[in-house]
């Protein structure tokens, strides 16, 4: 009898094994050896494991890598300990097949461009099927309302500016290992190139979060050309950078229907730029 069948609450290790389709042995328990092997060889699996074992706190690249080292130098039988089996933390929800619309730090920062644009996108994504407004909590969890969510095999849609390095790195890692597709509205290189207004570090932080995204939708052709320059720079990091296209937001005074069309276009046009 599995834990689920026994009626006991699922722990994060059970959820992880189910999501990774780790085989069960003849006693109905998941095979820790198989899970250990999977975690050692699959960075996405490690990302999910870390997100689950921390109660939904999304890991960074460095944490995913350190976990691989931890696993390589430990015995498979110790996996339960590594995974903190006895944790009483609530198991976060795993969202797959959804679009997580993320305003980033835009709500909290005064300099963010397009604050109105972000507000419009978030407002008009609400009624759309599969879309979920997701915001950071103070403890680096991604929250949909009051629920910690893990964007596993879902779509990340970053529509604001992420100015905090800890969040930016976690978002970038989620795009790399957790998400099916990662899309962002591109605002250009801001104050980075050609004179700074004291916001250069925040802007560089934001762009760091987007290095591993699949698609950037620039708000116009000038912004797209600006972002192409930024993408060119990423070769020094061994990163190809996202595809860059132009999707102009509706003009001021456009109807909610037009805004919905824009938001839908951000998601559905990705990969076709």
């Amino acid at each position, binding site marked *: 009898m599995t834990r689920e069948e026994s009626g006991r609450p699922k722990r994060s290790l059970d959820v992880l094994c189910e999501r990774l389709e780790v085989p069960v042995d003849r006693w109905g328990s998941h095979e820790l050896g198989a899970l250990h092997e999977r975690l050692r060889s699959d960075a996405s699996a490690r990302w999910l494991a870390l997100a689950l074992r921390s109660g939904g706190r999304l890991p960074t690249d460095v944490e995913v890598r350190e976990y691989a080292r931890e696993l390589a130098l430990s015995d498979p039988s110790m996996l339960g300990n590594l995974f903190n089996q006895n944790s009483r933390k609530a198991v976060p929800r795993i969202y797959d097949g959804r679009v997580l619309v993320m305003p980033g730090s835009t709500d909290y920062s005064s300099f963010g461009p397009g604050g109105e644009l972000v507000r419009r996108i978030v407002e008009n994504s609400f009624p759309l099927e599969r879309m979920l407004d997701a915001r950071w909590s103070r403890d680096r969890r991604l929250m949909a309302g009051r629920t910690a969510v893990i964007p596993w095999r879902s779509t990340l849609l970053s529509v604001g500016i992420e100015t905090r390095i800890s969040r930016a790195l976690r978002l970038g890692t989620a795009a790399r290992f957790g998400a099916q597709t990662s899309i962002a509205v591109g605002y*250009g290189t801001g104050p980075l190139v050609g004179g700074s207004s004291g916001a250069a*570090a925040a802007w*560089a932080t934001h*762009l760091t979060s987007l290095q591993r995204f699949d698609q950037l939708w620039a708000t116009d052709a*000038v912004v797209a050309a600006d*972002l192409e320059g930024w993408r060119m720079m990423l*070769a020094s990091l061994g990163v190809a950078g996202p595809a860059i296209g132009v999707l102009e937001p509706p003009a001021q005074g456009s109807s909610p229907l037009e805004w919905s069309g824009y938001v839908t276009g951000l998601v559905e046009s990705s990969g076709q730029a």
Partner: protein
Amino acid sequence: MRRRAPSAGSPLSERAITALSRRLDTVRAALGETVPGADRKDSEHGAEFAARTLLALCSRVVTSLDTADLWAIYVAVSTTYPDRSTMERLETAVAAGSPSGLADLTLEIGLAAGERFGDLAADVQLVSGVIVDVTFSAISDHNTGIQRVVRSAARWWALDPAVTLVAADGGPSMHRMLTADEAHRVSRWNEPADVVGSRVGSTDLVIPWHAVLLIPEVPALQRIAGLSELARHSGNNIAIVAHDAIPITGREYVAAAETERFAQYLELVTAAAVVTAVSESTATEFRGIRESSQARGNPGFDVGFRRLPMELAADTSGSVEAPLPVVLVVGSREPRKNQDAVLYAAERLWREGLQFKLVLVGAWGWSTGTFRSWLRRVRAAGRPVSAPHSLGDDGLWRAYDSASFTVFPSLQEGFGLPIVESLAHGVPVITSDYGSMAEIAEGGGCLTIDPRDDEQLVTAMRSLLIDSDLRGRLVREIATRPRDSWEQYAAAVIDIVTPYLPLGTTE
């Protein structure tokens, strides 16, 4: 019309008035402007002559509308470089069409700036040709990365009669010739102090004149505004030696203040005529910066590159015997250098039973928690590891000579000096498979890995520890690599920037 004697907030000393008069006369002569009394002997250049000369020069500018002349007059008066708002005020006065109004304004704001940041008692030289700003390497004993590059090249630039090495003091100070100590620190690093460059002795201020100002370091923040205006208005061109763009692309690897400073530096870069990068990878980064800047309607700049050379920096005694094979890691301890990966890979290999000593040489940087944790861990396990923060140049060369191979799996570099240092010592290198590091590795003697993939690093280190044939092949590859020298590098950079000398240059 008689001009009143120059005055600032506080009265100028007689010495300062004489110096002002001489500075203005120097600019006057260069512009070919005639002023009665200009042929009098130096000691007679006083306030009246200064006033006449300044008025004559301002009359010339009001007629010609030449901002380069305007810039030079202001610099001669203030002994500082004007920032954008100062130039705008001066240009407004030019547009008003009153030479006396322009002269008054120049004195008012110029002498005030000079009292605060300049040296109003100093003389000036107009210097043409290639001027190299080596400020930080001249005033600081810091000697890593950029300073090593600057000093290695400046050794040869100092011998080139078409090149003048200069420095600047804080704020908007203009350039000046190097002192004897500074010249030694820049061009004769590690040599006895009695040898100095041939063009040293005067500490005159320097007005770049139909020149290329080559900037091989990232200048202090307070100097950017003045240098940017120099690029835009002085009639001189600026050339940049670009080392990397890590502060904007590798934000997680630097402090926020470093990114802010670099963004200001890019204001200067985007006003430059040419950028010569230390690697093709860095050239690509700066082409990206240019693309972004041009997309916003700014003018572009040319981008080229001259890779840093592979030259043995000191005599070495050849291979040094060690009881265990030595794996050497050189570089400051910070997350970007990825040295925790080397400690982890070493631990894996020690557990496999391989025998070797790991030596990590480098200063403590920032955010070293992961590195410290791994170092503690391998030390606690009794592994043969040492981690000196510095060995000095001689000690470092001996460390290279004792190494079986070196490991440099950095996550981002503008160049990667430890790779070429290792190769110069005939020692194979494991390094990263992209960017400047892959570029250097292409020439042979290296194994490349994805530095974010620990398994690749473990495999490469294992191979070089157990496969003597592989190691021998890499050593032979190193022997066939073309070598170049810092002398060649220094000359090549001058060749790259010389075509950007403005028309009318006399050298």
